[in-house]
C-alpha cells in the first residue's frame, strides 16, 4: 500500500517537471502538485513549488494556505515565511503579513537577494502603517546603505519621515508630491548631500506650509547645523499639530542639550500624559530630572523607560551615571554590563 502510494507520488512529481519546461503550463503543474499533495500532504518540496507557482499566478490566498502548511512542517524555512508574508500583504492581512515577514528575516533567506530586498521593503512599509516609524526608517536606510535602488524607496521613506501610517498605495492623490519631496530630502540627508536636501525642504515648505509633519522634518534636519532655526521649525510644527509627541520629544531633547531642563521636563511630561507608555519620554524626563539634581525621581523615570524599552543603550548610560552619582555602585555595574552586552554584534538592537 505504502509502496504503491510512493510510486504514484513519484510519478506525479516527475510529471510536473515536464510541464514546467513549457510556458503557460503552470496550471497543469499546479494540478499535478495538488494531486501529489493529496496523497502525501507532508511533501515539503511539493508545497514549496506549488506555493511558488500559485504566487506566480498572483493567487495570493492560495499561496498563503500552502505556505502556512509548509511553515507548520518546516518552521525554519525563511523563504516560505517570506512568501507567506508577501502573499498576506497582497490580500491585505497586514498585521499577519508583518509578523511573518519579520519571521522571515529572523530565519534568514540564504542567498536570495531579490527576495530579501522584497522582504525588507514590505516590512518597512508595514512598519510605517503600524506607526513604527523609527523602525521603518532604520530598515529603509539599511536598504539604502546596502545598495538598493533609491527610486522605489522614495515614497516609503517620505511616509516614515513625515510619520503618516499609510502604504504608498494609500497616499492621498493631492499630496503625493509632498511625500515624494520628504522622501527625496531624507535620502539626500542620508547620502550626505545637505545642499540638495535644503533645496528640496525649501520647495516642500513653500508648497505645503500647513501640513502636519513638514516643519517637524525640516526642524530635525536643521537641529544639527542651525539649532536655533531647528527649534523654531519644531515649535511651528507644534502650533500646527499640538499633539505631535515626536516633535515634542525632539524639542525636549534639544532643550536638554541647551540645558533648558524645565522646558525639557515639561515637554516629556506632556508626552507621557498623551502616551503613558512612551519609553523615550521617560528617558527625557529622567535626564531632565537628574540634571536638575532630582536624582531619585530621575532614576525612577529612567527605570520606567528601561522597563518599557530595555534595549535602548542611552537609557542604560543615563542609569549608569545616575546610579553612580547616587552611590549605587552595584546597580551601576549592572548597567555597564548591559551596555557591553547590547554593543556586542549579536545583540538584537
Amino acid at each position, binding site marked *: *500500500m*505504502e509502496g504503491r*502510494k510512493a510510486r504514484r507520488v513519484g510519478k506525479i512529481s516527475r510529471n510536473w517537471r515536464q510541464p514546467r519546461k513549457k510556458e503557460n503550463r503552470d496550471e497543469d503543474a499546479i494540478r499535478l502538485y495538488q494531486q501529489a499533495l*493529496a*496523497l*502525501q*500532504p*507532508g511533501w515539503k518540496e511539493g508545497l514549496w513549488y506549488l506555493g511558488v507557482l500559485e504566487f506566480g499566478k498572483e493567487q495570493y490566498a492560495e499561496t498563503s*494556505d500552502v505556505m*502556512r*502548511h509548509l*511553515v*507548520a*512542517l518546516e518552521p525554519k524555512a525563511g523563504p516560505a515565511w517570506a512568501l507567506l508574508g508577501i502573499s498576506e500583504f497582497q*490580500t*491585505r*492581512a*497586514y*498585521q*499577519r503579513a508583518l509578523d511573518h515577514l519579520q519571521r522571515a528575516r529572523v530565519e534568514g533567506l540564504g542567498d536570495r537577494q531579490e527576495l530579501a530586498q522584497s522582504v525588507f521593503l514590505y516590512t518597512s512599509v508595514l512598519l510605517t*502603517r*503600524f*506607526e513604527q516609524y523609527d523602525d521603518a526608517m532604520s530598515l529603509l536606510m539599511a536598504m539604502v546603505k546596502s545598495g538598493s535602488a533609491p527610486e522605489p524607496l522614495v515614497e516609503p521613506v517620505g511616509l516614515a519621515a513625515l510619520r*503618516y*501610517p*499609510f*502604504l504608498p*498605495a*494609500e497616499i*492621498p*492623490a493631492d499630496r503625493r508630491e509632498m511625500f515624494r519631496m520628504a522622501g527625496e530630502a531624507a535620502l539626500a540627508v542620508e547620502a550626505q548631500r545637505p545642499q540638495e536636501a535644503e533645496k528640496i525642504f525649501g520647495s516642500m515648505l513653500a508648497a505645503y506650509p500647513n501640513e*502636519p509633519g513638514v516643519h517637524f522634518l525640516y526642524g530635525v534636519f536643521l537641529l544639527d547645523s542651525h539649532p536655533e532655526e531647528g527649534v523654531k521649525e519644531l515649535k511651528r510644527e507644534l502650533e500646527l*499639530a*499640538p*499633539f505631535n509627541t515626536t516633535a515634542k520629544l525632539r524639542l525636549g531633547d534639544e532643550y536638554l542639550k541647551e540645558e533648558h531642563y524645565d522646558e525639557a521636563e515639561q515637554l516629556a511630561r506632556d508626552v507621557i500624559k*498623551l502616551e503613558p507608555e512612551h519609553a523615550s519620554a521617560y528617558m527625557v524626563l529622567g535626564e531632565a530630572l537628574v540634571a536638575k539634581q532630582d536624582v531619585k525621581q530621575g532614576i525612577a523615570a529612567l527605570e520606567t523607560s528601561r522597563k518599557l524599552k530595555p534595549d535602548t543603550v542611552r537609557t542604560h548610560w543615563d542609569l549608569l551615571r545616575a546610579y553612580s552619582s547616587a552611590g549605587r555602585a552595584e546597580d551601576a555595574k549592572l548597567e555597564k554590563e548591559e551596555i557591553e552586552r547590547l554593543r556586542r554584534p549579536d545583540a538584537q538592537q
Partner: protein
Amino acid sequence: MVAVIPLLLLLLVFAGPSSATDSPPSFETIAKKADQARQADRLNEALTLYSEGVRVRPSWADGWWWQGSILYDQDRFADAQAPLKHFLAVSSKPAPAFAFLALCEYETGDYDHALQHFAMWAKHGSPGNDALLDVAGYHWALLLTREGKFNPALFMLAAKAQKLGARPALTEAMGLASLRVAALPENYPAEKREEVWLAGMAAVYSSLNELPLSEDYAGRLLRLYGKETNVHYFRGTLFSFQKQWDSAAEEYQKELEISPENAAALVELAVARVEGFEPNEALAPAKRSVAIDPENARAHYIYGRALFETGSYQQSAQELGVAKRLAPESARVRFVLSNAYKHLGREQDAKREQAAFLALKDKEEVLAPLDEKLNSHAPAGRTQ
C-alpha cells in the same frame, strides 16, 4: 484515499522492527502520546496523533479540541474548522469553540457563518481568556460594520479602545464604523485610508475621553474631507457624545446638505433637537427618517418621543409601538411608551410598559449579554 493517510502516517510513527506482529496501539496510548507531543511542542506529530485518536474514538472531545486549536494557532483556518465543529458536537462545554470557529470562518471569508457563531458564543456568555475576548470581539465588530450595524460595532470597539488604547487596528476599525463604511479593513478603497485613519483617531480618543486630541483629528478630517459623505455626520456624533446638542445639530444639517436621504443623520438630528429641548424641530427630520428607513427602531423611537414631547400622544404611542416591535429589549422605548399610555388614559397598558421598563432597565445597562444589547439596535441602513 485521503482518509487512509492518517492511518498510514500513524503506522509510520509507530513502526518498529516488529511492527508487523504488534497489535494496534490502544486509544489511551494514542491520547497519551498526543498530549506528550503537544506539550513538547512537537505539534505536527501531535496533530497526527490527535487525528488518529478521534478516528478511533470520535467522541473524544479533547482530541477534536486540540486538533482544531493547533491548526488555528498555525493559521490553518480552513483545516481547523472541521475539528472545531466536531468538538462543538461532542463537548459538554463547547462555548469558547464557537468563537474560534467564528474566527476561522472570518479568515476564510465565510462571514455569515462567522456572525452566527459569534452570536452563539455570546449566547453562552462570551467565555474565554482576555486574548480571546479581545480578538473575537474585534472581529465580530468588523463583521457588524460590514453588515451596516455601525452602532453596535462602535459600542464594542469603544470598549476595546478603553481597555487597549489607540492601537492601529482598532483605529482603522473605528474609522470605518464611524464613517459608516460597510466594509472590512482588508477591502475598503485605498483612497479612503486617510479619511478612515483620521476618523478612527478622533473616535478612539473620544472614547478615551481625550477630547482635545479627538478634536484635533476631527478638525483635520473636516478640513480635508468635509465634502465626503458621513464626515459631518461623524463630527455631529462627537458633539452628541459631549452633549453639545446645538453644535451636533449643525453638523447633522451640513451632512444632510451633502446626503439629503441620510437616515442616520436625520435620526441623530432629531435626537439632538429633542435632547436640546426643541422637540418641535425634531418632528420633521424624525418623520423623514422613518419614511426612509422604516425598519430603524431608533428612528421610530425618536419620532415617537418627539411626538410625545409635543403632546401628540396617540401618534407617539403608535410610533413607539413600532419601535417596541423592532427592539423589544430597549428599556427607553418602554419608558416613553408607558408615559404615552398614561396620557391616553390607558392605565393597564402603562403599568405593563412600566414593569417592562423596570425589568429591562438594569439589564440593558449592566447585565444584558452582549447579543441582547446588539439586538436592541435595529440594523442601520447601509449608506455606502
